[in-house]
Each structure stands twice: as C-alpha cells, then as structure tokens.
C-alpha cells in the first residue's frame, strides 16, 4: 500500500506534462516569461493615472510629429501689428446652433507710448473651421536630419483649425511680442522639447548601460573606478557647470549644432542614475541561479547577457528611462529659459519662456506662461507613466 500511494500520485503529476523533463522546464520558463509580461500589463492597466498619462503622451508625440498640421500658423509667420494680442477663446455655439467662432479684436493707443493695446471686441465675430485652407507646408518626416527618411512627406495647405477667412486674426492663446501666435509656436516647440528628451535619453542610455554594465559585470577595480566616477558626477552641482559649458557655445553656431551640444550636456548629467540601476541589476543577476546554470552549460558571455540578463530587466530600464525623460525636458527648458540653451529661431518651451523673465511682462501678458503649462503637463504625465511602469515591473 505504501508503494501504491507514491506511484499513483507520481503518475498523476507526470501524466499531465510532456514526458521529457528538460523540455518541460524550457517550456515552463517561456510560459513564465510570457505571463510575467502579461502580469505586468495587468498591473499597469490598474494604474489609472498611468493609463491616462499614456494617452496624453501619445497625443503630445503625435502633435510633435505632425506639428505643421496642428498649428494654424507656420513657424515664422507673424503679423507685426498684432503685438501681445490677448487669447481669443473659441466659442462653440452661436444662437444655440453649433457654429464655432472667436471674437474679434480691437485696440486703443496707449496715450504715452502710442503703442496699440489690443482687447477682445465683444461685438465682432470671426468664423473658424476645421481643415481650413492656410499657407502651404510640408507634412511628414521632412524635419528629421536623416537622409531618405526625410523624403517621406507631402505638401498640403490644410490646417486642423483656423479662421475661415485667412486674413482674420485667430490667436487662441494670444500673441507674443512680435505678433506671433503662441498656440502655433507651442505646437512647434513640442517637437524640439520632446526630441531633446528622446535624444538625450538615448545618449544617457548608451552611457549608463555600458558603464553600469561594465561595473556590474566585472566588479573589482573597474567597478570601483566607475562607482567613484558616478559619485563625483552626482555630487557636483550640475546646473552651474551646464551653464558654464552652454555659455561657451559660440553665438554663430548653426541651430543643429547647438541642439546637439545642448542635448549632450543634458545627457551627461543623467546617465548616472541609470548606470546604478543597471549595475545593481547585473550584480543581483550574477548571483541568479539560471545565469549560473547557463554559465555551467558553457554559454558564451554575450549570449548570456542578451538572452538572459537583459530581458529580465527591460522593465526596470524602461521605467528608469521614463523617469529620466522629464528631467531632460526640464533641463533643456531651464537652460533655454536662461538664454543659455537653444536660441531663436529654434523654438522650444524654454525659448518661449525667455520672454517671461521679467515680472512686469508676466503681469501684463500672463498668456505667455502657456508653455509652462505644457511643460508641467508632460512632466507630470511622464512621472505618472514611470511610476505605473515601476509598480508594474516590481512585484512588491
């Protein structure tokens, strides 16, 4: 009877699986990995704010790519007359009918400076519409500095939104000091501000993974040196030094070059956190059984890293990157705000905010602060997303 119990139970447990035990474990592992991603997705889905933020970020990037279509005006367009026009909010209904319009503008002259002071004219009405004709523009990937890919565009003159009569002013968020449309510039600057983040993250990812990986993989004196380096970089107050480097960028450099140097400066300060994450993961993974097992199998180092180590911390990397992105965006904004980052004619949120450095300006034309709202919203969204990802990646 003793024997029967054991045998019976054993039969039961083995009959359900396949008969080769090795294949079974291999399959189990794959299953486990699949369900791990699935589990993460389930967990992430429950994080409402993170889901919502994902939507917001998609919108941001979509707008960034097709900025020309979303902006009623082109980037350089301005009407010198309409200086500091206040925002003309959209009214959707007229006499109870759906008929969107904005109110017109009127001005009076400042008795001393003779400058025009614009106010909303409550009586006049400017009809607006969707997909209206405006100035012609290219839409697509023409702005990417990559050959061939930047041929992917077509030309059109339809804008998402605009005044039906293109000679009429429509400043949804007001105008700046030279009569440019804040809303259009905000849309365009999304492209630069967000891409600085992406390029910066790509750079610091490369730095972080290679240095952190070296550190965690080899340990010993290499680890020691890299750790000291990270400590030094982290304890140096970065802003003054970033400012110093940025201030040394010659004034006559072309936009693209300034863009890249600024991105590099920003990336140089944020790889350390990532390097630490990577190192920590490598260290803990080095102890892991399955790595040990595959090392005993004689798997090559490279295969080992990419087959086993990297997948198990993709999630962490992604979460750290999502949390690093807003820092980059903020850094660029701060630099440009101080006038040491990107310079006009490049337009980013920081560049736009340069105008708000004087309190008198903000007090009179508070709509110049709209870019700040854009920054805060995107940074919040990234933080929520990163938080959701981290929660999902961490089972505890």
């Amino acid at each position: 009877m003793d024997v029967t119990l054991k045998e019976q139970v054993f039969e039961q447990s083995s009959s359900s699986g396949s008969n080769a035990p090795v294949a079974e474990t291999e399959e189990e592992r794959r299953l486990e990995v699949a369900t791990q991603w699935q589990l993460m997705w389930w967990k992430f889905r429950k994080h409402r704010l993170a889901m919502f933020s994902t939507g917001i970020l998609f919108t941001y990037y979509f707008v960034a790519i097709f900025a020309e279509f979303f902006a009623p005006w082109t980037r350089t367009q301005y009407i010198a007359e309409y200086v500091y026009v206040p925002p003309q909010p959209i009214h959707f209904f007229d006499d109870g009918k759906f008929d969107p319009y904005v109110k017109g503008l009127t001005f009076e002259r400042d008795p001393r400076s003779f400058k025009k002071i614009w106010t909303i004219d409550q009586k006049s009405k400017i009809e607006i519409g969707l997909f209206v004709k405006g100035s012609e523009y290219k839409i697509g990937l023409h702005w990417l500095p990559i050959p061939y890919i930047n041929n992917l565009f077509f030309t059109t003159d339809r804008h998402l939104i605009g005044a039906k009569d293109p000679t009429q002013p429509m400043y949804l968020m007001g105008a700046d000091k030279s009569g440019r449309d804040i809303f259009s510039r905000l849309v365009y600057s999304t492209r630069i501000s967000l891409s600085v983040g992406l390029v910066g993250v790509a750079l610091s990812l490369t730095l972080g993974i290679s240095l952190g990986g070296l550190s965690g993989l080899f340990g010993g004196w290499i680890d020691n040196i890299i750790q000291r380096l990270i400590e030094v970089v982290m304890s140096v107050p970065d802003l003054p030094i970033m400012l110093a480097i940025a201030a040394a960028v010659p004034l006559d450099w072309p936009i693209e070059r300034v863009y890249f140097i600024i991105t590099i400066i920003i990336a140089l300060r944020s790889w350390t956190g990532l390097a630490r994450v990577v190192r920590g993961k490598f260290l803990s993974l080095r102890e892991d059984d399955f790595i040990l097992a595959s090392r005993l199998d004689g798997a090559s180092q490279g295969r080992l890293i990419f087959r086993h180590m990297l997948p198990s911390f993709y999630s962490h990397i992604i979460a750290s990157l999502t949390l690093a992105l807003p820092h980059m965006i903020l850094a660029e904004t701060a630099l440009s705000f101080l006038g040491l980052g990107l310079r006009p004619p490049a337009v980013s949120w920081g560049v736009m905010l340069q105008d708000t450095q004087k309190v008198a300006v903000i007090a009179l034309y508070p709509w110049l602060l709209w870019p700040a709202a854009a920054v805060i919203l995107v940074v919040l969204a990234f933080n929520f997303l990163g938080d959701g990802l981290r929660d999902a990646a961490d089972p505890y």
Partner: protein
Amino acid sequence: MWQYIARRFTYMVFTVWIISLITFAVIQLPPGDYVTTIVSQMINSGMEDLPPDFEQQIREQYGLDQPMVVQYYKWLRNIIVDGKFGYSFVYRKDAKDIILERLPVSFAISGFSVLFIWAVALPIGIYSAVKQYSLADYLVTFIGFIGLAVPSFLFALVLMFFSYKYMDRAMIGLFSREYETAPWSLNKFLDLVKHLGIPVIIIGTAGTAGLIRTMRANLLDELNKPYVDTARSKGLSERALLWKYPVRHALNPFISTVGWILPSLIAGELIVSVVLNLPTSGPVIYNSLLTQDMYVAAGAILILSSMTVIGTFISDLLLAWLDPRVRLH
C-alpha cells in the same frame, strides 16, 4: 568608524579636486585669449590709463604664457594660499570680494531649504506610509507628483505673477530697504530670515516632494520587516513601536539622500535667484557667464560645488553617528 570617516574624507577631497579641474576647464572655455579680452574690455569701458606693462603683469600672475599644468597650479595656489580667485574685469576687483558678498545669502537659503524639506517631508512621509491607501495618502502622493513636476523656476514665475497681481511686491525681495546695502550684522541676518519664506518654499518644494516619496517607500519597506513583528509581540503600543523601530530604520536612506538634495538645491537656488533677482551667488554666476567674466564664474562654481560636497560629507558623518552598522564596521 575612523576608517569609514577617513575613506569618506578621501572621497570628498578627491571630488573637490575633480571639481577644481572642471572649473579650471570652465575658465578655458571661452574662445580667445583671456588677457586680450580683459584689456580690450577695459579700454572699451573707459579705462584708458592702464599701465603699459599691465598685460604682462597679468600674464605672469596667472602664468598664462606657460603650459596648462602650470596655469592650473598657479590658479589653485592663488586661491588656496592667497585667497585670490582672479580678477573680475566687470566688477574691477578680485572675484573673492564679489563671491564672499553673496555666498552667505546662498548658504542661508540652501540651509533653510534643507531644514524646511526635512521638517515637512519627515512627518508627511511617515503619515502617508502608515495610512497607506487612505485618502490623505493619495492626496499627498498626488500633490507630491505635482511638486516634482513643477520646476522651481516655473513655480517662481507663477508665484511672482500672483504676488504681482494680488499682493504687494515686497514679498519677493530678501531684505528690507534699510538693510539692502548695509554690511552684514545680526540684524541684517534676522531681516534676511524674515524674508526667506517664499524663496525657501519655492526652492524646497521639489526636494520635499521627492523626500516624501523616499520616506514613504522606505517606511513601507520597513513596516513589513520581521523585527516589527518582534517589537509588536513584546506588547509595545503601535505608536511607540512605529517611532522606535521602523522610523528609525527608514531614517538612514533618508539622511543619505542629502547627497542628492544638495546639488539640486544649489541648482534650484541659482535659477530661482535669477528669476526673482535675489542677491545670492546665482545671478553672479549667471551674469558672469553671460559676460564671460570667467574668474568670478569659476570661483563661485568652485565654492558652491565644494560646499555641496562638504555637505554630503557631513551627511555621511551623520549617518555614521546614527547607524551602528556604519559606525562599528
């Protein structure tokens, strides 16, 4: 313990040295020859009666016609031995005087910001962890997110707008009128403290939000540790237990975060001071960078950075004092 302190001290000196290298590089950054720049600037600004060997004097003092290493050595020697940071052609005096004038305010702001951050983050972080998933916890978490997302200079801009619109403007300055130009005294300092509130809140908010999150996460970790069960099984009351065990353990990482708070505080102080036009070292660095008054910029950066590193060192000492594991190993 002594070994630990010695090691930390070595790191500190090493870091300061690296910083001095970076700052020296900063001086070299602007294109063109420094002396020529100075001389032409001086002539431009109406100082035509320069002594004929003025150029030569400066070149010798800083070793400008010698190799880089010698220049670096002379620059550092001038700072350490003579306390001279180099000549500012904008202010027409040694950079030291300009920096020393502004530094106390910077320190006061940063110091008070650290105190503010701790005083606010500690209790809120603890509360938020103990009442995990309560309404208050969600609220704190949400506000914390916003605090983290709003960079200090934007916060300053918005506050400035509101203060301009709805209050009198006085809240933005750092001194009452009678102390603005007065030399340092106890009364001037007290006057400063009175005006520090707004800048400290602006600069401290992001750090506070970050630290609340750290504290909450640490404490949540600690609350599930077996030693808490042990303490509970002894018959300690929940409150006594909380403060004595998990909070005490969660405090360690809390203190070591000073290391990252300080640099970001300095950055925040710098940019906020530029926005609010506060008489701290921030605008000095900023303006000297814009005008390429490099010795002032370098001096200020060197001192600020060194102070950060020393602050981190102090937090290491604090950690050793608090944590027997560090102390006794």
